[in-house]
């Protein structure tokens, strides 16, 4: 398809300021349809603020943000609704509603937007839970009864509830053990292929970058230093990138085989 490489998100000259602290200044970014883009940067570099700006949780102090080809920078909450149905967000610790079971959590957006017959609704919600690799009996548990990794998967199930085209993941592998993190990477890869998702991934896990990202964007000094394939990014000579990709923790990640994928 010719539209396969069209930008699905376009951020231009984004500026974000907290008090006197400038987080983003002239940030430019394009996310192409169907790709997995990894955004990496040091702690406090503003990765999460960028994600929050794009999904509309933070109003940018300057610049413009286009999602699905439309400028959403100055839209009211009401005008944003139709866009919000088309993307899913997974927060760092799942952000599940603690008074609802996992199944009920997944049903929340489905009930809000669609009028489905009860058996189909149950079946669909359960399917999302199964898609994220959770066992069926986890569906009737409350978030407090789940481990951190399972909560993340449940958060992903809720993000996938409306079959979004665009998926935002905020540090999906943080706090997971290396095996759990690798499994989660694999899951994201599988789902992004099968469900034709575009994934915007905020991380500081180098393994994830090598394993699942089509392109990597490095956020430092308030802007995108470089956005390219990971092999090209690691050769960049910005000091932060040098420290990050050639530091002691990078060796293992670089050795990892990138998961093959059709793209």
């Amino acid at each position, binding site marked *: 398809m010719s539209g396969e490489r069209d930008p699905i998100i376009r951020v231009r000259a984004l500026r974000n300021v907290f008090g006197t602290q400038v987080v983003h200044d002239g940030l430019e970014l394009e996310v192409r349809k169907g790709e997995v883009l990894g955004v990496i940067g040091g702690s406090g570099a503003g990765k999460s603020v960028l994600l929050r700006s794009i999904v509309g949780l933070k109003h940018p102090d300057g610049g413009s943000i286009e999602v699905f080809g439309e400028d959403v920078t100055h839209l009211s909450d009401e005008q944003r609704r139709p866009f919000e149905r088309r993307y899913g967000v997974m927060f760092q610790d799942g952000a599940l509603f*603690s*008074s609802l079971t996992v*199944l009920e959590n997944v049903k929340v957006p*489905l009930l809000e937007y*669609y*009028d*489905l*017959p009860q058996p*189909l609704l*149950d*079946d*669909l919600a*359960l*399917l*999302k839970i*199964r*898609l994220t690799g959770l066992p*069926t*009996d986890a*569906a*009737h548990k409350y*978030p*407090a009864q789940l481990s951190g990794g399972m909560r993340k998967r449940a958060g992903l199930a809720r993000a*996938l509830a*409306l*079959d979004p085209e665009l998926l935002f993941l905020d540090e999906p592998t943080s706090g997971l053990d290396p095996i759990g993190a690798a499994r989660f990477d694999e899951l994201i890869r*599988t789902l992004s*292929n*099968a*469900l*034709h998702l575009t994934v915007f991934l905020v991380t500081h896990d180098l393994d994830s970058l090598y394993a699942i990202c089509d392109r990597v964007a490095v956020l430092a000094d308030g802007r995108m230093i470089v956005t390219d394939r990971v092999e090209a990014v690691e050769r960049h000579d910005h000091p932060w990138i040098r420290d990050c990709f050639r530091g002691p923790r990078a060796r293992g990640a670089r050795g990892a085989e990138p998961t093959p994928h059709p793209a």
Partner: protein
Amino acid sequence: MSAFSLEGGSVLAVRGPWTLAQAAALSAPLEELLLRTRPRALILQADQLSALDTAGALVILRALERAGVALQAVEYRGMRDADRALLELVAERREHEAAADAVEVGLRALVERTGAATLSIARQTRELLGFVGLVLVTLAQVLIGRRRLRLTATVHHMEQTGLDAVPIVALLTFLVGAVVAFLGATVLADFGASIFTVELVAYSFLREFGVLLTAILLAGRSGSAFTAQIGSMKAREELDAIRTLGLDAIELLVIPRLLALLVMLPALTFIAMLMGILGGGVVGVLVLDISPGMYLTRLNEMTEIRHFWVGMIKAPVFAFLVAIVGCLEGFKVEGSAESVGRHTTSSVVQAIFLVILFDALFAIFFMEIGL
């Protein structure tokens, strides 16, 4: 052109978008069609399928399942590879599904829940008594000097639970005092006995309302605060940190709060009694034409000091109940912020319940001994 049709008995042609938005409308008719025709094998003609998502795939799979068509017996025609992969992924993940567990209703569930509730009451009572014992032992150890008294913390809590509560306690009891006086005046005026309003206000505030209102207010204000403070510490593993540092959570957190309430609740009760009587007095002067001098004289002559002591002696008991319940509920918090909220509510309800229960027991006791 409808979204699907069965051609020649075995070719199911699907057209247009099959996504979440269409799922509700497509689900029932498709199932109905397949159930009616019951094809043994099926060819899925999908060259006009414009979009498929998990919901659409699920609708197709559910219909096939209900009609008893095995997915292996389905032949795809003109379906995009991506859509077919999605269909197969959904089918694969559905395979291991167990039926969703049904909620049990009926007599058995009723008996079960009654039993569980009874056991839970018994367990809670035992926990409360165990905690009381633990706190009393620690308190004794503090008194004989084997453990330290955390003076700074105690004074801090005295300020928070006592001094800061003075305005609300004073205002509230003043208002209730005025209300009781109005009530008395309304009833007693019929007998020409308005002057007895003085006794009514004095007796009720000295014996009951002063201490009861203060205890209930502090249960809502300080007992809940104790639960929330200790509970959020528990949720953030601070209590575990206290233990690993070789400190004692009871000594550090409970004793200062308990002592603060034991001192401040009687003090606030005293203020409450004064303000209640003052409120009654204001109504007496303004509405009932009882002069201030008259009010005070009658108060002095007709009210014995024993009524004051009957009220006052209950104050430390109520303080103990509110502090113990507040702290214990805090220790019961597990993990989440939601749990903090639940136990805070439970702490207030239990504390008020116990305060009123003990007040009733005291009333019977004082009546029996003729006080």
